[in-house]
């Protein structure tokens, strides 16, 4: 139990250290903002003093009990009596102070915003870049929605923590210290009365705040349920209609909705109690100051002007103190958010040994006794060994889950092959020793379900080469048999992927991904079932274009269509993670294995088809 707590504390410390690093470039801005706000507070303190002097010494003509410099300053302007006759001078003084205050206020806001925006930008940028560099296995383990939430709402909470809560708490403390200073100088007894209720307000806000916090959580949770219910009804609208459950759905929704409404109505009572109690406390404080102020004033212990100043300070303090309690409650939530962000930032990113190599890759690729299992899963590859000659084409045939894509992910270092599970070498160099980015930029991989970015089609095709011309993009698209479809869109290559009204079909997406790979011209090309959604004729056309373009590239083709694999120099057949057949397509056709069986089925059909044509 104890060690656990200690761990948590250490973790917390780590987390705040991370936050500190996130504040690179914004720390000084936050500090400036706080300093500026201290100036504003100071101005807020001076105004009542001037009014107090104006009333006591200038208007009422009382003997000034002021420091010598203040008296000599007044004398320079003609003395207190003269100022009393010419109050505009003091009014101008007020305006001048106000002008400074406004400037201070402006910069407080600007510095604070600059600081918090810098902080948010730093957090987002670092998170994004870190996420892009996290190993693929990390991505597979974590849910997209959860990561996004960490990058958006948790970032916002941390921002609020630093730029609103933390700085405001400091500001309010400064304000309290300032006003205490000025008030003490005027009258100690009245000061004590004025601040008597501050602890009460704070204590009340803290205890009640926790209760409200819980209430809000319940409300949020229920709102989530209401929201999920709408979502489910909308996505399941066909099921609802087909089972004629409109009534049931409506009643269920209305029940949940009512529950949510009731929660808030109850919460309303709590909130109303909270606010009105706070009102009572702060007005009581005003009343106390008034009563005792009047008594002291009548007793001659305090001047009228000082009393006005007291009343003024009291008013200045009451709102910030009311907010202070709520803020302290809110602040306790930030811990969680920082921890959630730290989870991402502390996950180790892909990193290469500084001595990593950049050998030529147009060499022989050897898979040597590969065994591999994904985390917490049974082994998916068992002792797989084969060689790809430089410049040759390897075909891989395998059923669902046979491990064929895994082999390629290993080659592209999407997953690290543990030591002792065999080796993959290129030209004799273990890929573990090759710089990851270098390796990947020399491998062009097209996936079965390609991912396109929400940018224009031309941006998507040319994404890996910033200097690419539209001509080159079109050429790549032509080779991938995509040009015709794209020029058919109203906006052509400027069509936005995912734009309303234009949906790329599965085949078009695959072809776009192929065109994207073509602009990269890497010495190793991998096509992982990347023509599955394209019809046979287009498939053949694209393959021709590819072989004329990449005659020299080492190519891996994964497909279940034997026509696609027919031109490969060598084909390996994977079954349940084992290499069961290997040879040229011609050899395998008659080897009596899986390849032959599939060949007979597919050839039979094609043969029939050919008969008809």
């Amino acid at each position, binding site marked *: 139990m104890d060690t656990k707590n200690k761990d948590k504390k250490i973790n917390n410390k780590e987390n705040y250290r991370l936050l500190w690093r996130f504040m690179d470039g914004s720390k000084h801005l936050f500090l400036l903002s706080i300093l500026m706000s201290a100036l504003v507070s100071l101005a807020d303190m001076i105004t009542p003093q001037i*009014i107090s002097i104006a009333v006591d010494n200038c208007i009422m003509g009382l003997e000034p009990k002021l420091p010598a410099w203040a008296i000599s300053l007044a004398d320079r302007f003609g003395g207190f009596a003269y100022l009393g006759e010419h109050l505009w001078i003091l009014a101008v003084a007020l305006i001048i102070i106000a002008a400074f205050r*406004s400037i201070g206020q402006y910069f407080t806001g600007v510095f604070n915003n600059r600081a918090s925006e810098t902080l948010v930008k730093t957090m987002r940028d670092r998170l994004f870049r870190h996420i892009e560099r996290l190993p693929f296995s990390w991505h597979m383990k974590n849910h997209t929605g959860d990561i996004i939430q960490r990058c*958006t709402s948790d970032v916002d909470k941390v921002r609020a923590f630093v730029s609103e809560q933390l700085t405001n708490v400091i500001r309010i403390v400064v304000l309290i210290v300032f006003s205490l200073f000025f008030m003490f100088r005027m009258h100690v007894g009245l000061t004590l009365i004025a601040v008597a209720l501050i602890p009460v307000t704070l204590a009340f806000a803290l205890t009640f705040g926790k209760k409200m916090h819980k209430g809000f959580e319940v409300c949020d949770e229920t709102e989530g349920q209401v929201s999920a219910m709408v979502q489910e009804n909308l996505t399941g609208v066909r099921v609802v209609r087909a089972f004629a459950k409109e009534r049931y759905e409506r009643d269920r929704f209305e029940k949940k909705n009512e529950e949510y409404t009731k929660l808030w109505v109850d919460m309303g009572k709590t909130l109303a109690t909270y606010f009105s109690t706070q009102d009572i406390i702060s007005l009581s404080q005003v009343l106390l100051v008034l009563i005792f102020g009047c008594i002291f004033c009548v007793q001659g212990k305090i001047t009228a002007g000082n009393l006005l100043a007291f009343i003024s300070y009291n008013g200045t303090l009451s709102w910030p103190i009311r907010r202070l309690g709520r803020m302290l409650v809110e602040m306790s939530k930030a811990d969680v958010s920082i921890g959630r962000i730290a989870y991402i930032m502390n996950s180790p990113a892909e990193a290469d040994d500084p001595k990593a190599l950049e050998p030529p890759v147009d060499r022989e690729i050897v898979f040597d006794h590969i065994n591999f299992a994904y985390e917490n899963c049974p082994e998916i590859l068992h002792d797989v060994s084969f060689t790809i000659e430089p410049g040759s084409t390897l075909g891989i045939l395998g059923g669902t889950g046979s491990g064929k894509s895994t082999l390629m992910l290993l080659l592209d270092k999407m997953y690290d092959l543990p030591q002792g599970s065999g080796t993959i070498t290129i030209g004799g160099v273990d890929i573990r020793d090759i710089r990851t980015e270098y390796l*990947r930029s020399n491998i062009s991989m097209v996936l079965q379900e390609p991912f396109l970015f929400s940018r224009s089609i031309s941006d998507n095709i040319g994404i890996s080469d910033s200097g690419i011309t539209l001509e080159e993009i079109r050429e790549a698209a032509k080779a991938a048999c995509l040009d015709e479809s794209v020029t058919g869109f109203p906006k052509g290559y400027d069509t936005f992927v995912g734009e309303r009204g234009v949906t790329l079909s599965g085949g078009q997406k695959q072809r776009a991904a192929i065109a994207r790979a073509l602009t990269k011209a890497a010495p190793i090309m991998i096509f992982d079932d990347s023509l599955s959604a394209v019809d046979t004729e287009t498939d053949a056309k694209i393959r021709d274009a590819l072989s004329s373009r990449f005659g020299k590239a080492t190519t891996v083709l994964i497909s279940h269509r034997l026509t696609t694999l027919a031109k490969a120099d060598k084909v390996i057949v994977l079954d349940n993670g084992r290499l069961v057949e290997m040879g040229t397509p011609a050899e395998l056709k008659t080897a009596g294995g899986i390849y032959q069986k599939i060949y007979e089925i597919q050839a039979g059909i094609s043969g029939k088809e050919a008969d008809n044509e």
Partner: protein
Amino acid sequence: MSDPKTREKDEKDKYDLPFFGIPKMKPLLKKYRKELFWILFTIIIFTASDLATAVLQRYALNRFVGTGTLDGLGIFIFLYLLDIGIFAVSGYCNTKICLATEVSMDRDMRNAAFSHLQELSFDYYNQNSVGYIHARVMSDTSRIGETLTWNLGDTCFFLLEIIGSIGVMFYYNARLTGMILIIVPVISAFYALFQGKLFDLNKQVREINSKITGNFNEGITGAKTVKSLVIEEKIGADFEKETSNMFKKSMENARLKGVFNAVTGLATSAAVAIVLWQGGIIAREEVGTFSMFMYYAKNLMEPVSILVESLALFIMGKVNIGRYTKLIEAVPNVKDCAEVIEKYGNCFDPKKENWEPIRGDIEFENVDFMYPDGEENVLENFSLKIPFGTNLAIVGETGAGKSTLVNLICRFFEPTRGRILIDGIDSRQRSQLWLHSALGYVLQSPHLFSGTVRENLLYGNPNASEEDIAEAIKTVSAESVIEKLEKGLDTDVGEGGDLLSTGEKQLISFARAILADPKILVLDEATASVDTITEQKIQSAIDKIIKGRTSLVIAHRLSTIKNADLILVVSDGKIVEQGKHDELLARKGYYYKLWTRQYEDEATSAVWAKEE
């Protein structure tokens, strides 16, 4: 520069409403007129007691400090405490009523929207994304509720505060009040001028923010592609461009807001300075009156700035009202006529006693059909008899329009010409619910609701017994699925059934359909890859559940297609061939091509299955 997506959405939501759209909310305002009255009433009391504190303070200072006696201190304390009491009670009531009214309005709007959505036709769902509709139901309603209660209350409060302070000041010293008031119009004009700009900036900031979220989404879901293309740097740089943009806009926003606050502060001080300059002399006689003027002057400008903001919120609320109204006023494409509703009830209150039992004969009679957002007929003079018990298969490529017939038979859409007869009766002469009650629908991507497995199974037939459930599970061979679950039938399936695998969901949804025992069954076969054993289970489940019903299968499996009584072949939205399997094969047309390709795929995967 702006994202084409958002631009289009803006166009779509443009919906001009007079008076901030508030007249559109008349029924709601009428329903809650009592509460609204109380909100206003408590606000008035609240404001009055707030203003009174300054008057009381004036009294105390004038009376005690001014005269140097403490006579009447007790009465003063009593009065002040009374005022605190009134202030607190009215504040309490206001907060409570406001919140209760707000959430009640939200509830009513959401209920209305939800009910209406149950009646809207599928063209609405086809034209609007789930996210879009969801936002209308959840966030627009809550914004409207907030506008109509809190914003209304705030506006009144600050307006009364301004008018009240001016009134009180005027009562005590008209000349001084006049001098202070010079500032108000100047400052109001300033606010009004810049508020629009601030608004615009705010909107832009929100838009960029959602773009950044989108970028995160892309960066995460596309991580594999980013890595294999080695474009981490480019993607990162592009992201930073967006966050820089965000920074720029936010700073613009912050500077403008800073100017706003600075000007408010300056105006406040100007008012205070005027009081000192022109009213300082009052302090000699009545220090309380002087302090009261100080108090009001100090608290006059902030309400003005907040008032402008509240008015701006009303303008913003117009957009929400517009969107909500558009949803509520959307007319269902398919509607039962008045006589039908009279006799058979609507979708919430069916009059089942008048329902004729359904046999399950379906007939298309000279049907023309065009989708509401389409440009040409996809069916022309189409006639087809589907007697009870027929097993009809619809085949074609993805996106070829295979669901059209299903949509028509289920009356999710209605023919543009001609009739669809159910048991020989035009389906428009019966209620939609009558037809839907006899309908089973099993989807390609099975949709379960959150709740337990049992709740999901009972969805179509709440009265099914335990034996029925067990029987249905057995029929679809889902026993092993249930056994595997920790709490068996009472296991929670998670939102959308996501705690189960696709294959498991598929089997449960079959069992659900069997329990409902529909006369007409629509089945959209899954193409999703499931493991071989599940695949076989699904296959045998399909064979079992289509027996003894009229079934329409959007078919992908050879056995389903081969054994169908009738096959419709769809291409490019139109029916190009129809007949039995052998006839169609013999014709060696489009069907033949589809069939062979399908055969190839399936035979190939069969080889792998055998190897396992």
